[in-house]
C-alpha cells in the first residue's frame, strides 16, 4: 500500500486509534442512536410481543400536560364551602368525570390562586414531579457545594502548617463511594438516635428538636443535598485551588499597593481571576446534580410521597424495573436534551468571558 507523503500508514493509525474508537462507537454512540430510535417504539427488555412502531406515543405520554382550574365546592346558598384547611374542592375523580378531555390525566402540581385551584395535570405526573425535584435539588446543592468548595479552597490556599493534611481530609469523602456515603448518612440523619439530631438537641436544649430528615417530604431533598455537598465539595475545592494558584501574585501585590484590603482583593482580583473556573465548577456540579440517582435509591427510594424521585430515578424505574425500554429511553433522550442545553450554556458563558 502506498503511503501518502506526510501521513502515517493507515494500518498503523487504525491499530492505535481503532480499539478505543470501536469501543466508543459501540458503547457510547450506538446506545445514543438506539435510544433515539427506541423512543418511537414500545420495545421491552424481555417481551413475547414483537416491538412495534408507535410514533410519538412515548413523547405524548411523557410530556402531555394540561393546565386546568378547579372551582371550590359551593353549598345550596351558593356560598363556598370551607373546612379547617381552607376552601373545599371536589376530588380529582369528580373533576375528571365532569371533563372528559382530562381522561388519563392526573395532577402533577397544584396551587391556589384567589378562590380557585390551578392544577397542572399530566399523563405522567411523576415525570413532572421528578423534573421539578431534579431542578430543586440542583438549586439546593449548587450554592451549597460550590460555596463550600470555594471556601475550602481559599482556606487550603493559605500558607499555614498542615494545609496538606486538611486538603486530604476535605477530599476524603470524594473517594468514598456514593453508596457508602448514603448509608453512613442515613445513620447520621436518623430521627431519634442520629448524630445530627443529637447535636441539634444539645445546641437548642429542646429534647424534641430535630426533624425526621428522610421521612418528611419537606426535608428529604434538603438532607440529600447536604449529604451530596459533603461528598462532592472536595472535588470542586481542588479545581478552585488550581484556579487560585493560576492567578498571578503580582495582581495581589498591585492591589495591596493601591490600598485594597483583603475583602477588596477578593472581589476585584480573586473573583475575576476565577471566572472561567467558576463557570466550569457550576456547570459540572449542575450536570452531577441532574444525574442524581444513587443517594435517592439507597436513602429514600424516591419517597416520601415522591418528594425525592428524580429524572434518572424515574428513567431507571421505567426502563429497568418495569423493563419498558421505549419509555425509559424517551425519558433519557429528554434528559440528554437538558444536559446538552446546560453544556451549551457553559460554552456561551465562556465565549462571553473570552470576549471581555
Amino acid at each position, binding site marked *: 500500500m502506498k503511503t501518502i507523503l*506526510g501521513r502515517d500508514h493507515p494500518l*498503523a*493509525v487504525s491499530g*492505535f*486509534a481503532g*480499539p*478505543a*474508537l470501536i469501543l466508543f462507537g*459501540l458503547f457510547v454512540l450506538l*446506545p*445514543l442512536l*438506539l*435510544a433515539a430510535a*427506541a423512543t418511537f417504539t414500545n420495545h421491552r427488555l424481555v417481551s413475547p410481543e414483537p416491538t412495534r412502531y408507535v410514533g410519538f406515543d412515548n413523547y405524548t405520554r411523557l410530556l402531555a400536560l394540561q393546565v386546568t382550574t378547579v372551582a371550590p365546592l359551593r353549598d345550596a346558598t351558593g356560598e363556598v364551602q370551607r373546612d379547617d384547611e381552607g376552601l373545599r374542592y371536589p376530588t380529582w375523580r369528580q373533576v375528571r368525570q365532569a371533563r372528559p378531555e382530562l381522561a388519563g390525566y392526573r395532577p402533577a402540581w397544584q396551587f391556589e390562586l384567589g378562590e380557585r385551584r390551578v392544577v397542572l395535570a399530566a399523563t405522567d405526573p411523576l415525570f413532572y414531579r421528578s423534573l421539578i425535584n431534579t431542578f430543586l435539588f440542583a438549586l439546593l446543592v449548587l450554592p451549597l457545594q460550590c460555596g463550600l468548595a470555594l471556601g475550602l479552597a481559599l*482556606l487550603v490556599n*493559605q500558607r*499555614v502548617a*498542615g494545609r496538606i493534611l486538611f*486538603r*486530604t*481530609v*476535605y477530599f*476524603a*469523602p470524594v*473517594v*468514598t*463511594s456514593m*453508596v*457508602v*456515603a448514603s*448509608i*453512613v*448518612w*442515613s445513620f*447520621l440523619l436518623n430521627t431519634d*438516635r442520629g*448524630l445530627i439530631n443529637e*447535636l441539634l438537641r444539645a445546641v437548642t436544649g429542646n429534647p424534641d428538636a430535630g426533624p425526621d430528615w428522610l421521612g418528611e417530604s419537606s426535608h428529604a431533598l434538603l438532607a440529600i443535598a447536604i449529604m451530596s455537598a*459533603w461528598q462532592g465539595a472536595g472535588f470542586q475545592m*481542588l*479545581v478552585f*485551588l*488550581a484556579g487560585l494558584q493560576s492567578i498571578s501574585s503580582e495582581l495581589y501585590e498591585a492591589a495591596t499597593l493601591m490600598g485594597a484590603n483583603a475583602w477588596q482583593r477578593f472581589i476585584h482580583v480573586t473573583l475575576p481571576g476565577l471566572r472561567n*473556573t467558576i*463557570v466550569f465548577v457550576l*456547570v459540572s456540579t449542575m450536570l452531577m446534580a*441532574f*444525574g442524581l*440517582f*444513587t443517594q435517592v435509591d*439507597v436513602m429514600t427510594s424516591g419517597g416520601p410521597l415522591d418528594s425525592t424521585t428524580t429524572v434518572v430515578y424515574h*428513567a*431507571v424505574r421505567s*426502563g*429497568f424495573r418495569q423493563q419498558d*425500554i421505549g419509555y425509559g*429511553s424517551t425519558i*433519557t433522550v429528554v*434528559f440528554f436534551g437538558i*444536559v446538552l442545553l446546560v453544556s451549551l450554556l457553559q460554552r456561551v458563558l465562556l465565549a462571553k468571558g473570552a470576549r471581555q
Partner: protein
Amino acid sequence: MTRPIRHTLLRLPMLLAMCALGVVFATPLLFMFAASFKHDDAIFANLASWTSYVPDAGWSLANYAAIFERSNLPLFLLNSTIIAALVVVGGILVNSMLAFSLSRMRWRGRGAVLAVVVAMMVIPFEVIAIPLLSLVARLPWPGVEAGMLTWRMGWFNSLHVQIIPFLANAFCVFLFYQFFRDIPPELDEAAKMDGAGPWALFFRIILPNSGPVIATAAIVLFIAAWNQYLWPIMVVQGEAARPVQPGIQQFFGRSNSWGQIMAYASVVTLPVLAVFLVFQRQFVASVAGSGIKG
C-alpha cells in the same frame, strides 16, 4: 509585636475555621470506622462526645468476623478487584493508544475525532445507561460447550459486561492527549533516526516516559470502576458476578446490625482510600487538570 507572632495571630481564625470544617468533613467517616468496631448497643451511647471515637475495651473485630462469615463479601471483593484491575489495565492501553494517534500521528479526520472525544466528556453515564442496557441484552458472547464454539445471547450476569463498556474513557483520552502533546518532538526524531516504527516509538519511548499521566488515569479509572452502582444493579441479578457496591446496598437492606453494616462499609471504602492516600499527589494533579478543560 514581632512579625511572625502577628502573622500567626492573623491566621488564627483561619486555622480555627479549617479545624472546624475538618471535624465536619472527617466525622462521618471516623464514625463509620469507630462504629464498625463496636457492639450495636454501644454505637448510640454518647454519640456526640469525642470519646466515642477513641478505642476502648469494648472494641472488637467481631463485626468484621461476622460479615466475612455470613455474607458473600469475599466473592464481591474478588469481583470488584478483577473488574477494577482489568478496567485500569485495558483502559490505560486503549485510551493512551488513541491519544497517541491523535497527538503523534498524521491522518485525515484527526481533528474531528478529537472534537468528538472532547464532546463526549460531558455526556453523563446516566444518559447512556438505559439504552446501553437494551444493547448488551442483544450482544452475543462466545462460549465453549462440549468442545464446540457456541454463542450465548446477552451479556447479563457476567464480569465482562461490567468491564468492556468502561474501557474507552473520553476523559482519560484527553488526559493522555494533553500529556503526549507536551512531550518534546526531539524524542520521536531520535527514535525514528534509529529506524523505530510507531509501535516501538509508543511502547519503548512514549509510554515509559508517561509515568505521571498513567498514574492519574489509573486512579480515575480505578475509583470509577470500584464505585460503580447504577450499572451493576441493572445488569447483574445473581451473586456470582456481583461487585461490592450493590453488595453493601443489599446488606444494608437486609441487616439490622449497624455495627456490621459499618464494618461492611469500612471494608468497601478502605481499598479506595488507600489508593488515594498513596497516589495523592497525582490525584490532586488529575482533578486540577480536569478544570482546565473547561
